[in-house]
């Protein structure tokens, strides 16, 4: 596709439920990043994939958060037992994978936990 796409654009769930957020990166981009952004704050790094493997997951806040990228393209961020504090915009970005090359961001998924 022309850019990074994320689905759904909005997700409302109840406390304690499980959610999956999907990211479709730019074709050919080997690096993929997940961020979380709360209102008035900058994006907070969660996890970075190089190919199929999670090269850096140091930003995941706890073990309720997990992400996969099984074929090295599409990635899914999974959140178990959601809490109200998980409400935020979840952003995905991709890049060609070289050091500090440009990250291209998707529009984000707005997650609301009631």
């Amino acid at each position, binding site marked *: 596709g022309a850019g990074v796409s994320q689905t759904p654009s909005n997700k409302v769930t109840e406390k304690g439920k499980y959610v999956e957020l999907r990211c479709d990166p730019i074709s050919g981009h080997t690096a993929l*990043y997940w961020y979380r952004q709360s209102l008035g704050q*900058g994006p907070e*790094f969660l996890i970075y994939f190089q190919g199929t493997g999670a090269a850096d997951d140091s930003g995941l806040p706890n073990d309720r958060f997990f992400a996969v990228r099984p074929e090295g393209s599409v990635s899914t961020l999974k959140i178990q037992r959601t809490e109200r504090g998980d409400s935020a915009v979840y952003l995905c*970005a991709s890049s060609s994978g070289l*050091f*500090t090359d*440009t*990250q291209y*961001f998707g529009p984000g998924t707005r997650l609301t936990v009631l």
Partner: protein
Amino acid sequence: LAKTTQPISMDSYEGQEVNITCSHNNIATNDYITWYQQFPSQGPRFIIQGYKTKVTNEVASLFIPADRKSSTLSLPRVSLSDTAVYYCLVGEYNNDMRFGAGTRLTVKP
């Protein structure tokens, strides 16, 4: 990870030049300086990147002094559509870079 400090907000008027300075006192030898722009309800968008001296593209200029402990993003002749949040990031790799709260630029008519 190099920490960055930027002004929380700035105001300007259409047609003016805007300079946003970012401090990064503990920048490492291999770190690059990258600026992103973010409009409401959108993901950040790359503006410019540099290592030292001056970099210019069709959108902005980036000035980096010899000690590299700060950098200045310069936006020439801003318009209302430049109203956005601007982030300064420092790192050797993308996953080393951390977004701060950014600088909220408001351009007034």
